[in-house]
């Protein structure tokens, strides 16, 4: 849009047409006070705080020419003869805006007097005190006294719970509707609303359970008063006492920038930290309310060493020595290949580097993995590293012309913040297409929902690829291996593949047209897709190759590998080496006597099922690094207590290959050590101490040794680039209380194309033309609220998903099952009985099993898709 030049308080400003006056003023550091306006939300003009004088050139009605003053300047008139709300008044050429006049100041004082007339002014006991826009704006623009009688104030019952995590104090509420609009427009969970009218107008929750949204915490940030406060932080601390420490959330592959607000060594609250490349100013409730496990009383405090049946406390020196000797003993007796190691995907890059140093460099085993070794283990994929998304991709900048294809993905459960990011793309004119075997939340935002048979996502993508290759669609792609790809699909037709996917061919054709006509395409693969071998990621890579969706910002593949740093684990070689086994193969190998000792860091494979539990029991030697005495740790010979997120420094790589630094917020309460420090201790005991003193030494070593990470040193990670659209120290007026980012926005690693300049290679595909599977297929689906370690002490505890099975209405009818009634599932592996939920959107022959704590998935499932018999269970 063309730019418009206007004058605001004597300053000449040029902004894009359509910009509102408040935003235009911000670009020239003129602060117009607001309450209901928020730069991330559509303006509504309700609070009337942003009233300004707007003068526009007068037009002669007869000649349609501007009326001129005697000196030749255009004569101006006050728009509509009254003040205008700046947030809903777009700029126009020649406009003169005055924000500091007697009339404006009278109105500003007036609105503040009105707002305070029904506000309790209980700032001394209000959690918002100290970071409250109402407080700040009253000090700057308001009257110093109120003429409203105190006894006339409106009073409501003090806070009422709006949900498990949020309290509503109705008498503090100034009815700006920011929270309602956030839920409607940004989160897409329209669970809040209004009731009644006038001074009785109040916020209510319309859902059951109340405030049923994974993004509820954000409403406390954007609330301009203390009406919405979190049950997690309520009365914990005054905000000026806390020290915000920038860290990166490791709950999922998004890598949200957050701060840990510390008072001395205690975590008081978690807040989002602005990073437009990752999480804008938001975070999800799991990230915000799921950090209380760091202060859980059951944390391990000292190393433990096995004495017979007992694990007894030991010194670090002793424990590290025992661990090293034990591993070395097995290596000496049974060889390096009798050792295996696994480290969880939420460890840091530095942890991974030391893990590889110990297990591969020193001990020499090829059996390394970052996956938990269960049925939901994803296959290693390279599509996202080869095809992008390219460096410079920022989902916040995408809209019209961008198509996002979600394949076997449920971002709400796997990487919640992507829900906001993808809905943002839709709001800006982009399109979403979901390809899943079952309904997901983002279906509601999608332009097209393609429902495939369980496990047939790859067949659908192959059908599209095949159609593009056969149909002679414009092939502008520079990808290599297209001919080999074409050959590999010989003998299969798009029609056959569509049938194999269980999708009408017309749908495939329409989808294909949609995909090839999109100027930008991002393909996002979720766990369900990634866990079906490499079929889906290869097909997706081929689709990116044939559509040319790579090599430029805004296009490419994003893989939601589970864990906060799965990308880093793969980049740093925590994958099976030459002749190495994948984690899921460890248990059989142990049973066969091929593996005899293991080092497990930050994973709990004993809970996966009977096979892994008994295999761990059968090991000669087991070292576990964990924060808690997990089921796996109970079986260990040495247990080494690890430091948790607030107690460690390090770098993490997110799903978009952005490396970000997380800082240490406190000393570990009982001397627990970061994984990399523990591993360095083991290495030292093995006589191979790399001698790093701080985390950044390891980061530097990674940058020196791993080509992709060459640019990812602390200095470059700490650069806060770009225009954040907010003025320093005034964010609290506009954006709420999320923190500005002063600690760096991270570095996006180059793709293979960008590093070596060669176009990516499309892997050949194996056509999946088999018939649609018959019988019932169970899909093991992820849940964000899975009840695992992070949930300890969390206010979200009541929201943890219990083990259950979800059936469609047809199957429920056939089996005569009602909600909550038991269903028995039997597979080749075994049989379990779970309570049933019914999802109206689920097709017959598909059931979903939620992958949560308390359900040993491996005892039923051999993968994410399992053939099962379903029967009514015995109560």
């Amino acid at each position, binding site marked *: 849009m063309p730019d418009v030049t206007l004058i605001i308080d004597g300053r000449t400003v040029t902004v894009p047409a359509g910009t509102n006056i408040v935003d235009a003023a911000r670009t020239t550091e003129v602060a117009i006070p607001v309450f209901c306006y928020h730069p991330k939300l559509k303006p*509504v*003009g*309700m*609070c*009337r*705080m942003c*009233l300004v004088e707007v003068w526009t050139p007068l037009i002669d009605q007869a000649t349609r020419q501007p009326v001129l003053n005697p000196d030749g300047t255009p004569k101006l008139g006050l728009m509509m*003869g*009254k*003040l205008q709300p700046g947030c*809903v008044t777009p700029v126009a050429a020649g406009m003169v805006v005055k924000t500091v006049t007697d009339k404006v100041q*009278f*109105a500003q*004082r*007036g*609105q503040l*007097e*009105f*707002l305070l*007339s*029904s506000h309790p002014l209980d700032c001394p006991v209000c959690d918002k005190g100290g970071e409250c826009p109402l407080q700040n704006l009253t000090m700057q623009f308001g009257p110093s006294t109120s*003429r*409203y*009688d105190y006894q*006339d104030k*409106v009073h409501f019952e003090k806070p009422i719970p709006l949900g498990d995590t949020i309290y509503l104090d109705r008498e503090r509420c*100034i*009815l700006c509707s920011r929270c309602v609009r956030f839920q409607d427009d940004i989160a897409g969970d329209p669970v809040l*609303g*209004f009731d*009644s*009218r*006038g*001074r*009785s*107008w109040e916020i209510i929750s319309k859902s059951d359970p109340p405030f049923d949204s994974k993004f509820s915490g954000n409403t406390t940030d954007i609330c301009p008063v203390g009406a919405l406060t979190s049950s997690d932080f309520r009365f914990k601390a005054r905000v000026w006492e806390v020290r915000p420490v920038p860290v990166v959330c490791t709950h999922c592959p998004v890598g949200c920038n957050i701060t840990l607000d510390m008072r001395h060594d205690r975590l008081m609250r978690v807040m989002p930290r602005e990073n437009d490349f990752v999480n804008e100013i938001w975070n999800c409730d799991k990230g915000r309310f799921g950090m209380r496990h760091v202060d859980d009383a059951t944390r391990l405090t000292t190393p433990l060493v096995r004495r017979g049946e007992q694990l007894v406390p030991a010194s670090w020196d002793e424990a590290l020595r025992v661990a090293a000797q034990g591993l070395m003993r097995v290596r000496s007796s049974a060889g390096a290949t009798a050792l295996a190691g696994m480290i969880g995907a939420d460890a840091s890059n530095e942890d991974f580097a030391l893990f590889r140093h110990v297990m591969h460099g020193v001990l020499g085993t090829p059996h390394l993995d970052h996956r938990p070794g269960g049925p939901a283990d994803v296959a290693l994929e390279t599509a996202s590293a080869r095809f992008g998304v390219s460096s410079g991709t920022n989902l916040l900048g995408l809209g019209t012309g961008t198509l996002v294809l979600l394949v076997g993905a449920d971002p709400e459960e796997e990487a919640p913040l992507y829900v906001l990011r993808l809905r943002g793309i839709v709001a800006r004119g982009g399109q979403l297409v979901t390809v899943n075997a079952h309904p997901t939340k983002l279906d509601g935002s999608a332009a097209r929902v393609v429902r495939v048979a369980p496990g047939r996502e790859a067949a659908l993508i192959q059908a599209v690829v095949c159609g593009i290759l056969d149909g002679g669609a414009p092939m502008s792609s520079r990808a290599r291996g297209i001919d080999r790809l074409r050959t590999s699909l010989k003998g299969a037709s798009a029609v056959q593949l569509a049938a194999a996917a269980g999708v009408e061919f017309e749908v495939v054709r329409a989808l294909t047209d949609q995909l090839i006509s999109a100027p930008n395409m991002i393909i996002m693969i979720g766990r369900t897709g990634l866990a079906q071998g490499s079929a889906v990621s290869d097909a997706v890579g081929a689709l990116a190759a044939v559509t040319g969706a790579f090599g430029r910002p805004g296009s490419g593949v994003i893989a939601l590998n589970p864990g906060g740093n799965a990308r880093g684990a793969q980049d740093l070689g925590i994958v099976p080496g030459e002749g190495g086994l994948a984690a899921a193969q460890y248990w059989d190998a142990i049973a066969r006597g091929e593996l005899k000792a293991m080092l497990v860091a930050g994973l709990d494979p004993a809970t996966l099922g009977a096979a892994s539990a008994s295999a761990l029991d059968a090991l000669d030697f087991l070292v576990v690094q964990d924060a808690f005495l997990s089921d796996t740790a109970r079986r260990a010979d040495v247990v080494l207590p690890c430091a948790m997120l607030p107690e460690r420094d390090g770098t993490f790589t997110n799903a978009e290959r952005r490396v970000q630094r997380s800082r240490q917020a406190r000393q570990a309460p009982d001397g627990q050590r970061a994984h990399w420090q523990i591993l360095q201790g083991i290495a030292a005991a093995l006589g191979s101490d790399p001698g790093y003193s701080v985390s950044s030494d390891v980061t530097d070593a990674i940058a020196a040794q791993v080509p992709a990470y060459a640019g990812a040193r602390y200095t470059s990670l700490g650069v806060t680039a770009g225009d954040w659209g907010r003025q320093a120290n005034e964010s609290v007026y506009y954006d709420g209380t999320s923190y500005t980012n002063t600690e760096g926005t991270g570095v996006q690693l180059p793709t293979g194309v960008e590093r070596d300049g060669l176009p990516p290679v499309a892997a050949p595909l194996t056509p999946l033309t088999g018939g649609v599977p018959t019988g019932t297929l169970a899909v093991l689906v992820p849940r964000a609220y899975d009840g695992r370690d992070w949930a300890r002490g969390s206010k979200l505890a009541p929201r943890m998903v219990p083990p259950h099975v979800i059936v469609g209405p047809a199957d429920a009818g056939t089996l005569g099952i009602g909600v909550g009634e038991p269903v028995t599932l039997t597979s080749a592996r075994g049989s379990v009985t779970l309570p049933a939920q019914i999802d109206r959107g689920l097709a017959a022959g598909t059931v979903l099993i939620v992958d949560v704590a308390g359900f040993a998935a491996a005892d039923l499932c051999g993968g994410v898709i399992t053939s099962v018999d379903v029967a009514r269970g015995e109560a």
Partner: protein
Amino acid sequence: MAPSQAIFSRSRAGQESEQQFMPPLTEHIVLRDLDIPDIGDPEVYHRHGGYAALRTVLTEKTPAEVVALVRDAGLRGRGGAGFPTGVKWGFLPKDSYPRYLLCNCDESEPGTFNNHQIIDRNPHQLIEGVAIAAYAIECHTAYIYVRGEFAAGARTLERAVADAYRRGYLGQNIMGSGYDLDIVVHRGAGAYICGEETALMESLEGKIGQPRLKPPFPAIAGLYGKPTIINNVETLTNVPMIIRHGAAWYRQYGTAKSPGTKVFSICGHVRRPGNYEVPFGTPLRELVEADYYGGGMRGGRAVKIIVPGGASSAWLTADKLDTPMDYESLAAAGTMLGSGGVIILDETVSAVELAYKMDEFFKHESCGKCTPCREGTTFLVRVLHRMNHGGGRASDIPLLHDVYNQMAGNCFCLLGESAVVPIRSALRLFPGEFEQAIERAAASAATLRANAIPLVTH
């Protein structure tokens, strides 16, 4: 036809006024129920030319011709703003369909009750008007939004709509013209704000009744985001008669700028409160004093306050009784014609109490969306309450001026702006009454202090 009435009226008890008044209308345009008994009966309506205008329009005129005819007649919106109806109809964007017609029957302005009489006693003329307007703006669904409290009226209207369907005046292929129209009668839930056009649309869409941000204006994006025209009941009831008799006929009534007639709802301390249809430009005095209209003041008392266009209009005093009742003249007098609800109050009324009562109404009806209306009306009512109950303070008069000035021009919609009107009128016209209220409060406080029960000490 009404017999010719005495042209001398009793404006004061026992006194013959020398004032000469125009005779009342012998034939009404809107309140035809006064001329034709039982016109609400479809047979009777039909016998008196009912639906002939609709037939003419559907068979002989293009939509554009209908719009032009109504524009030429100079019909102005009776909902309050007085905007030319034909011009409004011409605002719809080209080639944007579907379009909707909303008939605003949420008549909630205090002192206004003519819509009620129309739907109660002459519903078919309204339905015919809705159908003609719908044809003119090329829409196929029209809604009549009826105030929640008009239960009986809404039922009458629903029966009339059902009858119109039965007789083929509504529904598919009306009178063989190929034109389809559905009319839906919808009752509100009892909120003044739902008479505001955008709040009405929100309410009709099933949402909480609150005004929308404008622009976009309803003609561009209204009901369900589609181009929408909203007209008042009285406006649309005029339309069949304009079609039947033509623009020139219509313009013989009223003034050049305010053509036609207007149904004024006269209430207050007059002898004969009620709805009276008179040509625009009829002097206010005539409405108050003519025997066949208000019939003079009850008990022969003097006129003190005239609220000429519903509670939202600025007050007049008796010296303005000769103001002609048309849009321009009332605007020149510093008030507005508004909804045509004329409230005449005599000297027994306290201006302080009247301002309190009226602002209590606006406070009760404030939707809560914007700060100045939600909090400002509450503030005003609190201060006016104490002033009326012997608790006024010396600082209250400047305070009241400040509070309404903090609201004036700053509200989201006209409800809050309307709430400013009564208190501003009262303070402007009767400042002495406020001062007296404060003096009385001070005196009674002094008396209370003097007569305080002495503290007994032993």
